[in-house]
C-alpha cells in the first residue's frame, strides 16, 4: 500500500507509542466505523433510515485521535462525521443505530435530532446541533470549566476544514490560547465542504497554519495513517493535560462518499478522482501494516470482520425494532425543571 512503502513497520509502530494490542483495537474500531457507515448508507438507500453522513475515509483520523484520550475522563465535542471517535469513547453500535433510526432509546437525543448528531452525557460526549462551528468555543468552555474545577480532563473538538471558516473557529481558538486551556482542536481536512473545495475556504489550504496566530502550535498530519494521528494527538493531549495549553491538529483525510445521503458528489467530482482517492483508503492500508507487523493475517482479519458485521447487523435489528419516541413527548422537555 502506497504510504507504507519504504517505512519500517515496526519502527513506525514503536514510534507511535502504541503496542500491538492497541493497534489491533484501533483497527477493530476502524472496521466497526466503516461497517456502520456503509450499512447506514444502505439503510438510507432502502428508505429504512432517512439520513446519513458517511465517514468512509476518516476512520483512521477519528479512531486514532480519540484513542489518544483518557476516554473515561476526557470530553469529546464531536461533529457529524466523528463516528469513529464516538465508538472509541464508548458508544455502542446499538446506540449508534438507535440514533440512526431516531428511536426513543437513542442516548444522543431520543430521536429529536437527525442521525449522527452526537451527544452522550454519561460518556462525556458534548451534544452537537447542526450549526457547524458553534462547537469550537463550546469546547473551550468545557475546557475552561475543567481548568477551573481542576478536573484534569482534556477536551477534544472535531470539525471539518469547511466549518473552520466560521467566525466561531477564530473566537474559540483565541480564547483557548489566552487561557492555555486543556483542549485539542482536531480538524478533519477532507478537502470538501459539501461541494465547496478547500481552495474556496481560504487561500491557505492548511488549516493548521492558523494556530500560530493564536499563540499555540498547529500541525498537519496524514489523517489516513492511524499511527501518525495517534502520535500527534497524544502529544497534544499530554500537552493539554500538563497545563501547556491547546494544539490545533489537522488531519488530511479523504471523503470517499458523498457529503450525505442527500448529496450526489458526481455533480462536482469526477469518477476518476473518486477512484484515485479510493487508492488511499485508510482501511486496507492499516490492514497491510498490521499484516506486515505480524499483528493480523487473512484469517484473523476475517474473524474480526465477521464479528464486526454481526455486531452491526444485530444493532440494526435491535434498533429497527425499538420503539419510536412517544408523540406526546414532543411537547415536553423544552425547559429544565
Amino acid at each position, binding site marked *: 500500500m502506497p504510504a507504507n512503502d519504504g517505512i519500517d513497520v515496526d519502527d513506525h509502530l514503536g514510534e507511535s507509542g502504541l503496542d500491538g494490542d492497541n493497534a489491533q483495537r484501533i483497527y477493530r474500531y476502524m472496521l466497526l466505523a466503516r461497517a456502520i457507515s456503509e450499512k447506514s448508507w444502505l439503510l438510507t438507500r432502502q428508505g429504512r433510515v432517512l439520513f446519513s453522513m458517511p465517514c468512509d475515509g476518516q476512520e483512521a483520523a477519528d479512531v486514532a485521535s480519540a484513542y489518544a484520550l483518557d476516554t473515561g475522563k476526557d470530553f469529546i465535542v464531536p461533529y457529524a462525521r466523528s463516528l469513529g471517535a464516538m465508538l472509541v469513547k464508548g458508544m455502542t453500535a446499538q446506540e449508534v443505530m438507535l440514533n440512526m433510526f431516531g428511536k426513543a432509546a437513542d442516548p444522543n437525543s431520543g430521536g*429529536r435530532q*437527525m442521525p449522527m448528531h452526537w451527544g452522550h452525557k454519561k460518556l462525556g460526549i458534548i451534544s452537537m446541533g447542526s*450549526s457547524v462551528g458553534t462547537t469550537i468555543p463550546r469546547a473551550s468552555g468545557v475546557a475552561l470549566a475543567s481548568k477551573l474545577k481542576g478536573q484534569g480532563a482534556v477536551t477534544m473538538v472535531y470539525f471539518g476544514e469547511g466549518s473552520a471558516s466560521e467566525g466561531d473557529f477564530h473566537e474559540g481558538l483565541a480564547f483557548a490560547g489566552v487561557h492555555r486551556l486543556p483542549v485539542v482542536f482536531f480538524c478533519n481536512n477532507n478537502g470538501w465542504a459539501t*461541494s*465547496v473545495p478547500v481552495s474556496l*475556504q481560504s487561500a491557505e489550504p492548511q488549516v493548521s497554519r492558523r494556530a500560530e496566530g493564536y499563540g499555540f502550535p498547529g500541525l498537519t498530519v496524514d489523517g489516513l495513517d492511524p499511527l501518525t494521528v495517534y502520535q500527534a494527538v497524544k502529544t497534544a493531549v499530554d500537552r493539554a493535560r500538563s497545563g501547556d495549553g491547546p494544539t490545533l491538529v489537522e488531519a488530511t483525510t479523504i471523503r470517499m462518499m458523498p457529503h450525505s445521503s442527500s448529496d450526489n458528489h458526481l455533480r462536482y467530482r469526477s469518477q476518476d478522482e473518486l477512484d484515485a482517492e479510493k487508492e488511499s483508503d485508510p482501511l486496507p492500508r492499516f490492514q497491510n501494516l498490521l499484516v506486515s507487523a505480524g499483528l493480523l493475517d487473512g484469517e484473523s482479519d476475517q474473524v474480526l470482520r465477521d464479528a464486526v458485521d454481526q455486531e452491526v447487523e444485530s444493532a440494526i435489528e435491535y434498533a429497527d425494532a425499538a420503539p*419510536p419516541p412517544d408523540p406526546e413527548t414532543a411537547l415536553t422537555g*423544552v425547559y429544565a425543571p
Partner: protein
Amino acid sequence: MSEMRLIEAVRDGLREELAADGSVFLIGQDIAVNGGVFRVTEGLLEEFGPERIIDSPLAESGMVGVAVGAAMNGLRPVVEIQFADFIFPAFNQLVSEAARMYYRTNGEYSVPLVIRAPYGGGVRGGLYHSQSVEAYFAHVPGLKVVVPSSPYDAKGLLKAAIRDDNPVLFFEHKLAYNTVRGEVPQGDYTVPIGKAVVRREGQQLSLISYGLSVHHCLEAADTLSAEGIDCEVVDLRTVSPLDTATLLESVKKTGRACIVHEDNLTGGVGAEVAAIIAKDAFEFLDAPVQRVAAPDVPSFPYSPNLEDALLPGPPDIVRMARELSAY
C-alpha cells in the same frame, strides 16, 4: 404562461434578473458547481459564470457582510442561506448593518440586498433544517420580509425584491419547492412587496396566513365549506411591512379571524397580526382572534412521529375554525 414548480419559478426569477441587470450576482454555499443543495440555482453557473455565481465559504456572517459591502458599492447581491436555520450567524450583519444602513446614513447609502433561504418543516430535517425564522426579522425596522406561497408570486416577488433598494429577506418553503405548482408567465413581471392578496373569498371567517401554510388554509377552507363554514383566505405574501388594509378589510367583513403559521406561537408573526386586528377591527369582531401555529418548542424534532405531533396542518385549522364559528 406555463405550469411550474415553485423551485422553477424561483430559478426563473433569478435567471431573468441576472440576465437583465449586470449588477446582480449570487453568492451562497454550494450554489455554483452544485447548483444549490435544493438545485434552485442549477444551470446558473454555466449561464452567468463564476464571477456572478459564487460559491461561498462556510461563513454566513462573512457572506452577508460581503454582500452588504458589495451592495454599498453598487451591486445587487442575492445571497442564499442554505437553510433558514443557518441565518443566525449572520444575524448581526443583517440587523445591525443591512437593516439600518439607510437610516443611519440619513439616506446616503442604501443596501439593495436579497437574502433567500429555504425554511419550514415536514421534511424530516430535525431541529436545524426545519425552522421558520421570519418573525425575528419582521421585528426589525429597515428589513422587508417576503414569504411567497405560489410559483407566480415567488417569481414576481423575487424580481421585485432584487429591484428593491432595501434588504429583503425571502423565505421559500422547502416542502413547497417541488409540491406547489402553478401558472407562471414566461417573461418579466413583478409582484409588489407589501401587498397581501385574498386567495379565496368567504363571508364567515378570515384565515390569514403566508407561505406553505396558505395551502393548508385553502385545504381547510374546502373541508369547512362542506360543513357550511365559508372561509376567506388571505395570503399576506409579505410579512413585513404588513398589508394591514387588506387583512383588516377581510376581518371587518367576516368578523372572525384566525392567523395560521408554521412558526412557533409565541412572538410569531401571528402575534403582530392579532394585535393589529384586535386594535383596528375591534368593533367588527364576533369572536376572539385565534392563532394556529406550532407549539413553543425549539423547531421540529427529527423522528417522524415527533415532528407530525407538532406540525400545524389543515386539521388544526379546521378544528380552530369550527370553534371560532361556533363562538
